[in-house]
């Protein structure tokens, strides 16, 4: 990373605190021509305050651990360039919304993954290793529906963007429901009906208001709103007596 000849500084506000509360601390960070939000956070931790807590691993948009709220919007910080999101010379970085805070920028992902399990987002094999492999036709409509959601990196950006989650803590959220929809359409998953039952409870897919924030913010450009609509359609027709 090279310093720009006529580089300016960034005025960065970073939320510092824990589950009991906190406030923004302000840092001045040198601006580079090619710099991600995660670079900025790391610079602060390395040069200003070594106690700043945040989470990252792969730095290439695969692991889903570095999501934060940047200037009011949930982002994967390792793939978010500062010059795409900066307002003037100001950057505000906070932990993900809709999740408890552990410390500073690290959100507690437990509720996110608990809902993932509650939506039956856990693969249950339909066969053992001794059975012949299930034939998968990549072009079948059902398989294509499953394939659309499998690139989810569990970053919780959609969960943080979702105002239904914010208003209704019981709501399972877009990521867990998209995972459920993937499994409903996966011929290698044992029991699609048990997944459909799990997402038909209070707080399931029917709580979704189709705001579309999940789809608007998904960094992997997936479409959780479409997946939730698929669950609604399938559970509605199931309710009306059409068996899968």
């Amino acid at each position, binding site marked *: 990373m090279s310093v720009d000849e006529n580089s300016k500084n960034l005025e960065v506000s970073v939320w510092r605190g824990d589950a009991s509360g906190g406030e923004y601390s302000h840092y001045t960070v040198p601006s580079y021509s090619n710099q991600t939000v995660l670079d900025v956070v790391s610079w602060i931790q390395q040069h200003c305050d070594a106690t700043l807590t945040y989470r990252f691993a792969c730095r290439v948009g695969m692991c889903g651990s570095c999501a934060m709220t940047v200037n009011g919007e949930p982002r994967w910080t390792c793939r978010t360039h500062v010059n795409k999101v900066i307002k003037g010379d100001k950057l505000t970085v906070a932990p993900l919304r809709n999740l408890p805070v552990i410390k500073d920028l690290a959100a507690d992902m437990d509720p996110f993954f608990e809902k993932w399990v509650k939506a039956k987002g856990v693969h249950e094999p339909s066969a053992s290793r001794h059975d012949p492999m299930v034939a998968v036709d990549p072009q079948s409509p059902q398989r294509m529906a499953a394939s659309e959601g499998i690139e989810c990196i569990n970053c919780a950006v959609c969960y943080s963007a979702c105002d*239904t989650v914010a*208003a*209704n803590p*019981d709501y399972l959220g877009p990521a867990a429901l998209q995972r459920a929809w993937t499994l409903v359409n996966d011929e290698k998953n044992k029991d699609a009906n048990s997944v459909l039952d799990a997402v*038909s*409870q*209070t707080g*399931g897919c*029917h*709580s979704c208001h189709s705001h579309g924030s999940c789809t608007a913010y998904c960094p992997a450009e997936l479409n959780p709103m479409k997946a939730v609509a698929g669950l*609604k359609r399938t*559970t*509605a027709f199931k*309710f*009306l007596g059409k068996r899968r």
Partner: protein
Amino acid sequence: MLDVRLYMAQRISALVMAPLVIGHIAVMIYAVQGGLTTAEILGRTQGSLLWFVFYGLFVLAVSVHAAIGLRVIAGEWFGWRGLPLTLFSCAVFILMLLLGARAVMAVTFS
């Protein structure tokens, strides 16, 4: 706030109402020409089984739809859950149904 049964009640009442609302808007646009009078309204609706069924069904569907819709909003905005939320939605349903039924009787059967 919503499970699949309430969701289905909400969506089915909506689908029942869709043609009724279109009919209602069409009648409104037709009837307001030259102003409204009680005699004109009653002349159209009184003693008519068709309008009784039309508006009777409309009132029933809107009572279900509004009760579930307001239930979700009360749950999201005021954090109501469980029994208070159920009592609230039942109260909305009964209020809408009684007031609506009285209005339908007034303009079709009086």
